[in-house]
């Protein structure tokens, strides 16, 4: 899922200052699961903004709404009336959600209330970790299903770097060395042989280098 975290209240106040009628719009999908922008976070952030507004003599009037998915036109429709009756939207969706709303309402300022961080999973209660950088040319098959791009701090395809201590990464001692994980996993599935091959430099063309990435499926076009 896409993992995000909220901006601080002073940051949000900065963004919203000068506006009056504000729709705080949550999203019921990824950001609900990572506890950043679902119905409950909409309620908490709205309360905090109301409190901040009164404490700082601003005049926020805040409406709360959470739709199923902000990155999907079918669901955005459900927010139409609420968007219309407010001056601005503070979206608690991921970056894609914010932009989907903004593209739909050309004359309405739409602001991001979250910092969209990464594609990841819940590792343990209260801890989310990155697992994929959407590099566009997945190599998980060669590394026992452990991503060297996101889980090795140096993104090494021919690791390890040799700097790990115990099983810790030398760059991020709070995290396990990705290459240690790759080694253990390949050993576990009987594919240690893979490590004997030198992997050539990765093709980064399908990654961020070439501008906005688009996937076209002719079989689904009308």
């Amino acid at each position: 899922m896409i993992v995000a975290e909220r901006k601080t209240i002073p940051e949000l106040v900065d963004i919203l200052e000068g506006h009056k009628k504000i729709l705080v719009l949550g999203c019921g999908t990824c950001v609900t699961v990572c506890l950043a922008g679902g119905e409950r976070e909409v309620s908490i952030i709205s309360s905090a903004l109301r409190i901040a507004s009164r404490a700082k003599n601003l005049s926020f009037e805040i409406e709360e709404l959470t739709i199923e998915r902000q990155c999907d036109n079918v669901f955005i429709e459900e927010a139409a009336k609420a968007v219309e009756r407010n001056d601005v939207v503070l979206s608690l969706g991921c970056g894609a959600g914010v932009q989907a709303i903004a593209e739909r309402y050309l004359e309405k300022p739409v602001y991001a209330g979250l910092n969209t961080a990464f594609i990841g999973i819940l590792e343990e209660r209260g801890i989310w970790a990155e697992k994929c950088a959407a590099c566009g040319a997945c190599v998980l098959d060669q590394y026992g299903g452990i991503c060297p791009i996101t889980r090795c701090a140096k993104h090494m395809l021919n690791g390890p770097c040799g700097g790990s201590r115990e099983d810790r990464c030398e760059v991020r001692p709070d995290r396990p060395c990705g290459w240690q994980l790759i080694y253990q996993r390949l050993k576990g599935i009987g594919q240690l042989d893979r490590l004997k091959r030198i992997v050539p430099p990765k093709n980064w063309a399908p990654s961020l280098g070439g501008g906005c990435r688009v996937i076209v499926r002719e079989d689904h076009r009308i």
Partner: protein
Amino acid sequence: MRLQYPTNIRIIRTPCTGRLEVEYFMKAFENGADGVLVAGCEEGSCHFIEGNFMAKRRVNYTRRILSEAGFEMERLRMINIGAADARPFVEHIKNMIETIRNLGPNPLHEADASSSVLDAMIEQETQP
């Protein structure tokens, strides 16, 4: 033991402090509560094992977000107290009320600013 505690508090019972969510505290202050005192069981004696630890973390998180919003986080406090500890219970309440008196009424209170101190008191229901 029949101890008196101040009358300007309102007790709200909950099955366990672990039931309390951040948004409850936020709503209480938004609606004008001058202070909220969360009374959980002593650490290690939660009937639901970790409810009071969860409450503690949520209280801390709420205090952070309140202070981000420019609101005195001292208005929210959590204590851990045994169900039979009447004397310290009364002391904690008096202490909280003292804190609130020093801070003054909740600035968000729409009613007369000189109205008496109203504390929302959340107490964990005594386990048999």
